[in-house]
C-alpha cells in the first residue's frame, strides 16, 4: 500500500499548492510534502528489502523490483533536498523581483506534480502508462523552464516542449509496436503491456517488430535522456530554468528516461537474442560523451556547462548499459546514483554563486572562496567529484566502466580517454578561477542553504569508499535483472 502513498502524497501536494500556493509558507509546505514522500518511499524501500520484488494493484499495475526501488528512493531523496534548497533560493529570487507569488504557486505545484509523474513512471508496470507519465513529467516542467518569462527562457521552454514532444511521440509509436507484438502472444487487452508479462514471454516476441520498436523507443526516450544528437533541448532548458529545476532535471528526469530505455532494452534483448540494442546504446553513449566533452570546452555560462557535463555522464552511463554484463550494469547503476547526487549538489552551489554574482557568466564569478568559503569549497569539491577524481564515488563507477571497456571493447577507450581529458581540462580550467583567486564582490549577505550540498557530497564521498552491503545487494540484483 505504501506505493499509493508514494504516488499520492506528491499528487496531493501538487493540488494543494495549486490552490493555496500563494501563501507565505508555500516553500515550507513544499518541503514538507517532499519530506512525506521521502518517508513513504523509505517505508516502501524497507518493505522491498524485507519482502523482495512485489506487484500491486489489479493485474499488477505497479511493479517494484530492485531496479526501480532504489531509483524511487533516490528520486524522493533528491526531490526533498532540492525542495530544501529551493526554499531560501526562491525567496531570494522573489526579493530580487524576478518572480511573483503567482509564479511561485505555479512553481510549487508543478514541482510536486513533476515528482509525482516521475515516481509513477518509475513504479508503473505498464509500458503505456510509463509513456503517459513521461509525457506528463515533460509537460509539468515546460512551464517551470519558462518561469522567468524572459525571452531566452521562453525560447528554451519552447524547444524543450517541441523536441521532447516529438521525441516522446516516437516513443509512443514504439510502444504501439511493442503492444502490437505483445498482443499476439498475450492476447489484446490491458495486460499485454505489463512489463512483467512481457518479460515473461519476451523470448516469443516477434524480433523484427521489436527491433523497430526499440529504435523508436530509443530515439524517443533517448531524446529525454539527452543523447547526442537528440540533446539540443537540454543545455537551453538547464541554463534558462530556475536552478532547482535544473537540479531535478539533470539529477532525476534524465535517470527516469534512461530507466524507460533500459526496461525496453531488457525485452528487446530477450526477443532478439543478439546485442543489437547494446551496440546502438554504446554508439549513442560514445557519441554523446565525445560531443559533450568538446562542447563543454566552449561554454561561458556555468549552468550551461554543467548541463553539457550531464549529457557527457548520461552518455557514459548509456555506454556502460550498452556494454552489458554484471560489472558494467553495476557500474552504470552506481554512476546513475553518483551523478544525480553530485550534479544536483553542484547546481545548488552554482545557484547560490550565480545569485550572488548576479550573472551566470563564469567571467563574472570570481574568488568564491573569499566571498563565501562554504559555497566555494562546495563548488570545488563537487566539480572534483563530477570529474571523477577519487575518493568520490563518481570515480568508483568510472573506474569500473573504463576498466571493463578497456577489457571488452578496447577500440572505444581512446575516445573515452580523449573525452575525459578534454572535459577535465575544460571544466576544471573554468571552475578554478571561479573558486580561487581575487574578487571585488562583497561577502554573501544571506546565509545560503548549503546543507543539501554537503549532504550530497558526503554521501558521494562515503559511497566512493564504502558501499553498504544492502545497497550493493540492490545494485547487484538490478544488474542481474538487466541481464548480462
Amino acid at each position, binding site marked *: 500500500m505504501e506505493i499509493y502513498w508514494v504516488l499520492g502524497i506528491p499528487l496531493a501536494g501538487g493540488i494543494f499548492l495549486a490552490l493555496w500556493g500563494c501563501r507565505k509558507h508555500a516553500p515550507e509546505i513544499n518541503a514538507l510534502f517532499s519530506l512525506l514522500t521521502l518517508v513513504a518511499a523509505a517505508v516502501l524501500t524497507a518493505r522491498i528489502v524485507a519482502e523482495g520484488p512485489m506487484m500491486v494493484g489489479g493485474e499488477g499495475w505497479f511493479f517494484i523490483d530492485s531496479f526501480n526501488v532504489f531509483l524511487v528512493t533516490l528520486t524522493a531523496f533528491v526531490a526533498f533536498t532540492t525542495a530544501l534548497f529551493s526554499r531560501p533560493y526562491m525567496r531570494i529570487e522573489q526579493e530580487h523581483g524576478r518572480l511573483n507569488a503567482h509564479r511561485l504557486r505555479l512553481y510549487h505545484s508543478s514541482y510536486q506534480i513533476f515528482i509525482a509523474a516521475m515516481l509513477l513512471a518509475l513504479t508503473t508496470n505498464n509500458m503505456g502508462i510509463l509513456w503517459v507519465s513521461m509525457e506528463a513529467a515533460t509537460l509539468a516542467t515546460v512551464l517551470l523552464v519558462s518561469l522567468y*518569462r*524572459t525571452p531566452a527562457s521562453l525560447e528554451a521552454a519552447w524547444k524543450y516542449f517541441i523536441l521532447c514532444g516529438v521525441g516522446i511521440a516516437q516513443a509512443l509509436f514504439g510502444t504501439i509496436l511493442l503492444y502490437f507484438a505483445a498482443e499476439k502472444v498475450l492476447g489484446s487487452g490491458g495486460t499485454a503491456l505489463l512489463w512483467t508479462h512481457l518479460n515473461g514471454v519476451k523470448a516469443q516476441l516477434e524480433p523484427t517488430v521489436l527491433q523497430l520498436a526499440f529504435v523508436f523507443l530509443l530515439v524517443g526516450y533517448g531524446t529525454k535522456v539527452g543523447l547526442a544528437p537528440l540533446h539540443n533541448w537540454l543545455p537551453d532548458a538547464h541554463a534558462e530554468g530556475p536552478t532547482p529545476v535544473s537540479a531535478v532535471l539533470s539529477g532525476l528526469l534524465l535517470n527516469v528516461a534512461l530507466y524507460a530505455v533500459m526496461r525496453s532494452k531488457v525485452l528487446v534483448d530477450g526477443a532478439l537474442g543478439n546485442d543489437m540494442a547494446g551496440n546502438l546504446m554504446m554508439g549513442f553513449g560514445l557519441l554523446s560523451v565525445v560531443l559533450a566533452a568538446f562542447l563543454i570546452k566552449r561554454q561561458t555560462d556555468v549552468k550551461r556547462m554543467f548541463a553539457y557535463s550531464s549529457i557527457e555522464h548520461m552518455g557514459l552511463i548509456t555506454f556502460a548499459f550498452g556494454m552489458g554484463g554484471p560489472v558494467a550494469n553495476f557500474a552504470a547503476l552506481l554512476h546513475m546514483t553518483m551523478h544525480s547526487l553530485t550534479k544536483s549538489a553542484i547546481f545548488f552551489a552554482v545557484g547560490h554563486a550565480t545569485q550572488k554574482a548576479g550573472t551566470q557568466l563564469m567571467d563574472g564569478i570570481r574568488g568564491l572562496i573569499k566571498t563565501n568559503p562554504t559555497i566555494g569549497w562546495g563548488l570545488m569539491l563537487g566539480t572534483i567529484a563530477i570529474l571523477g577524481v577519487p575518493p568520490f564515488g563518481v570515480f568508483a563507477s568510472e573506474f569500473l566502466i573504463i576498466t571493463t571497456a578497456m577489457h571488452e571493447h578496447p577500440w572505444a577507450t581512446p575516445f573515452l580517454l580523449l573525452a575525459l581529458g578534454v572535459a577535465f581540462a575544460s571544466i576544471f580550467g573554468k571552475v578554478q578561477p571561479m573558486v580561487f583567486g581575487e574578487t571585488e564582490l562583497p561577502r554573501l549577505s544571506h546565509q545560503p542553504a548549503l546543507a543539501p550540498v554537503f549532504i550530497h557530497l558526503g554521501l558521494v564521498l562515503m559511497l566512493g569508499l564504502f558501499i553498504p552491503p544492502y545497497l550493493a545487494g540492490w545494485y547487484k540484483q538490478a544488474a542481474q535483472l538487466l541481464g548480462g
Partner: protein
Amino acid sequence: MSLTYHLQVVNLLAALLLLISFAMLSQRRIIGLVTLFAWQGAALALSTAIVAWSTGQHHLYYSAGLTLILKVIAMPWFFYRLVKKLDVDREVEPMINIPTTMLIGIVLVIFAFNLALPISQMSGTVTRSTLGIAMACVLLAFLMMITRRKAITQVIGFLAMENGLFFAATSASYGMPLVVEMGVALDVLVGVFVLGIFFFQIRETFDSLDLKHMEKLKEH
C-alpha cells in the same frame, strides 16, 4: 463479405489521411492548415469507429469519440480563435520550398511502406495494410514540423503526428488498452492547454509567433 466492404472503406479513409497529410505539407495559410487538421481528425475518428463496429472492439468507440471531441471540435476551434486573436494568418515561406518538400514526402512514403511491409504481413488485424500509411503520416507530419517556421504550424504538425500514431494503433492492433488511450488523450489535452498559455507568453514577449525570434540560444 461485409468485412471486406468495411475494409475497403477503412482503406479509403487511410488513403484520405495520407492525402490530407500531403495537403497539409503543401498548405501555406494557417487557417487552411487548421481546417485540414480538422478533416484529418474526422477521417481518423470515422475509420476508428468503423473498425470498432466491424470488429466489435467496443473500447475503440471511446477513442473514436475522444478523437472526435478533441481533434475535430475542440482543438480546431481553439486554433481558429487563436489565429484570429493573435492575427497570425500571414503566409510564411517554409524553409524548403513546397515542391521539394513534396518530393521528399513521396520518398518518405515509399520508405514507410517498405518498413511496414514485414510487420503487416504478420499482423492479425483486418486493417494491417494501413499500418504503412500510418507510419507515412507520422513521418510526413515530422517533415512538416521541420519545414514550417511558425509556432502554430509546428504544433499542428505535432498533433498531426499524434493522429498518425492513433491511426497506427487502431490499424495495427485495434487500438491500445483503454487506460493508455485515456492517458494519452489526457496528455494531449494538457499539452494543448499548456501550448495555449505558451502562445500568449510568446506573443506578449516577441509580439509574433514567428520562430525566427527564437534562435538566440546557441553556441556562439
